[in-house]
């Protein structure tokens, strides 16, 4: 579970658990987990990222789960692609991370390709656009899975929007190191969103959503912002 989902958007985690359980998956949440180390990695602090990465390996190797499911293309990529990258010169950790990488799946990838489910039989009224996080799109190549799942949501009109492949401008510490460019990138997305006529923005990455929602609110938009897992969770928004 990404640390920012844990701390900022816990309801996304709740929806993930509910959706997985509905599919008959036994869900384990290793409570010793913290962060995958990506903030340090993206800033060039590889030693610190390795230290946090080692802990991640320890925690998840200790669980007897078949898969590690993560509701973020970005954190999934950190583990599946960039652990082998930062542990490249350390044979032991490199092998450990490569073995673990086999078990790590982004949420929609798991639902569609492991569980073989394309339609969760849920309804959600609205006109939505889907923003695919860049790691999910390019490193993982998991783009059709979330789109397919969303297209089967009753009442939801999934719209095309301009330049949908463009980054939202979050980029981790980039958002605070290069705030003007980062904000201008968000504005570009919001311009396209406005043009599409959508009232809902959906993504598989809460970090992209946090950035876009932050800018949407600041510019006076009341667009509904949801993580994919929330859309697929029939109980999202009800009680609790």
């Amino acid at each position, binding site marked *: 579970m990404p640390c920012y989902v844990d701390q900022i958007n816990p309801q996304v985690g709740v929806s993930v*658990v509910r959706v997985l359980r509905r599919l008959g998956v036994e869900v384990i949440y290793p409570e010793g987990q913290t962060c995958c180390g990506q903030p340090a990695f993206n800033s060039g602090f590889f030693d610190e990222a390795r230290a946090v990465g080692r802990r991640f390996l320890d925690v998840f190797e200790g669980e007897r789960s078949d898969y590690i499911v993560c509701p973020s293309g970005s954190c999934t990529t950190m583990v599946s692609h960039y652990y082998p990258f930062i542990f490249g010169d350390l044979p032991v950790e490199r092998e450990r991370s490569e073995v673990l990488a086999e078990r790590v799946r982004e949420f929609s990838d798991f639902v569609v390709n492991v569980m073989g489910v394309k339609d969760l039989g849920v309804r959600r009224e609205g006109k939505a656009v889907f923003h695919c996080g860049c790691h999910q799109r390019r490193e993982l190549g998991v783009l059709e899975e979330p789109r397919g799942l969303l297209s089967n949501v009753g009442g939801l009109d999934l719209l095309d929007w301009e330049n949908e492949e463009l980054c939202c401008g979050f980029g981790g510490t980039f958002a605070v190191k290069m705030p003007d460019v980062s904000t201008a990138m968000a504005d570009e997305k919001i311009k396209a969103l406005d043009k599409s006529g959508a009232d809902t923005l959906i993504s598989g990455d809460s970090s992209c959503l946090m950035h876009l929602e932050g800018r949407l609110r600041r510019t006076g938009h009341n667009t509904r912002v949801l993580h994919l897992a929330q859309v697929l969770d029939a109980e999202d928004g009800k009680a609790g």
Partner: protein
Amino acid sequence: MPKTERPGENVETGKPARKRETEDHRPEGLRSRVEGFNDRARKAVADEQLHDSIELFTHKSVAGRNAVLNALPEAPELRERAYRIKQETMANLDRYLEQMADAIEARGGNVFFAGDGEDVVSYIGDLAQRKGAKVITKSKSMATEEIELNRRLEEDYAGLEIVETDLGEWIAQLAGDTPSHIVGPILHMNRRRITEVLSRTAGEGLPPDVEALGSFARRRLREKFLTADIGITGANFGVAETGTVVTVTNEGNARLVTSVPPVHVVVMGIEKLVPRFTDLSVFVRLLARSGTGQKLTVYTNFITGPRAAGELDGAEELHLILMDNGRSKLLGTEFEEALYCIRCGACLNVCPVYRQTGGHAYGSTYSGPIGAVITPLLKGHEEAKDLPHASSLCGACWEACPVGIPLHDLLLKLRNQQVEEGLAGKAQEIAFKGFESTMKRPALYNISSRAGRLAQKPLLRDDSVRPLPGPLSAWTDSRDLPPLAEKPFRELWKEGI
């Protein structure tokens, strides 16, 4: 700074929501806090005319590129082959350079190995003096931009006139400007600005239409083509086995630069080599498609040696300058892939950062993702400390690169190199040490999370954190920041979902 804060209101208490914060808190003018790329980017982002010009160019280029590459089923395979050819070239670069030099010399050409820009300038300057040259025509070349050849030649060798003949480069030269894109040097100028520049050169007001401006440029450049004593070109590729220099253009200017003056000088970065003539079938097909969305550029020139007995055209003298300028030190390192670049500009066109800022914000000859990678590599981190950070690491550059250079991974390695060399700064070092110790210890992570939830209480307004001072203002000046949830997921999990 525009203030819109209204103290005294507290949404924590659940009072009826007042009007949301919809103000941008960013201060007017430039922020002095962050130097370099940020300041230039800030200016660029605010320049609507620039934004329109960039959008027009990059959209057209990306659409064109996608169309021709999608129509080429073997494109992914070509990309793979291009990568492997470059990999093999770099592994044996000394041998291929020797082969290239031997082939050129065997045909009566001259070869000079230049360690840096200074070597290139003095070689060409001395040559010009020996020849009594006055006018030098030049076709577009990033290698010569990199070493500021024009400025240095004109400063060091009085009386030399150097004329750029690529239309965009010429206009940039007349305006005293530098290229802002590898392929479209003046994409940052609109028609009004171009008309202004050319009218000033003409000494009369020219009408702002393509026909009139084009014909003025043609007339004026033709005079220079015909009187030039030396022609300088870059090289898109150099073929080691045959000693062939390949240049591609759409204006045909490289043909006039290489065939009219008696002397032709090629300035080629040593990484431009390909081993075999047949390798061109991979690279030429990728270059035009990726750069301009053409199947082939209008002119593709192959020059193999000076004019030989019985030949009707070509320069009488050929000088090939093989320029290192920091390249060879990347060979065999984790940054070697940066040398695979064929300067098509595709990574600039797809880069969401470049699309907001244009090329000048990078403050270097090469802009966009490839510029952010090679500028610190060729010139050192001190010259371009902020460039590796001028990227959200979205990977669009890597996806678009016809040679498959993992540009965003190289940016990450450069960031790491800065950290290892102690260039990241104390504040970041402390922050990430703290990050490490917190994330390594769940107990500390939980304490921090509780402390964070307490600390944020006075800062909350509506359902977000109010604009903050200090480093986090970089976020909150222009975007709302969500607060930490009342209960983190781990607590909800314990309570039972």
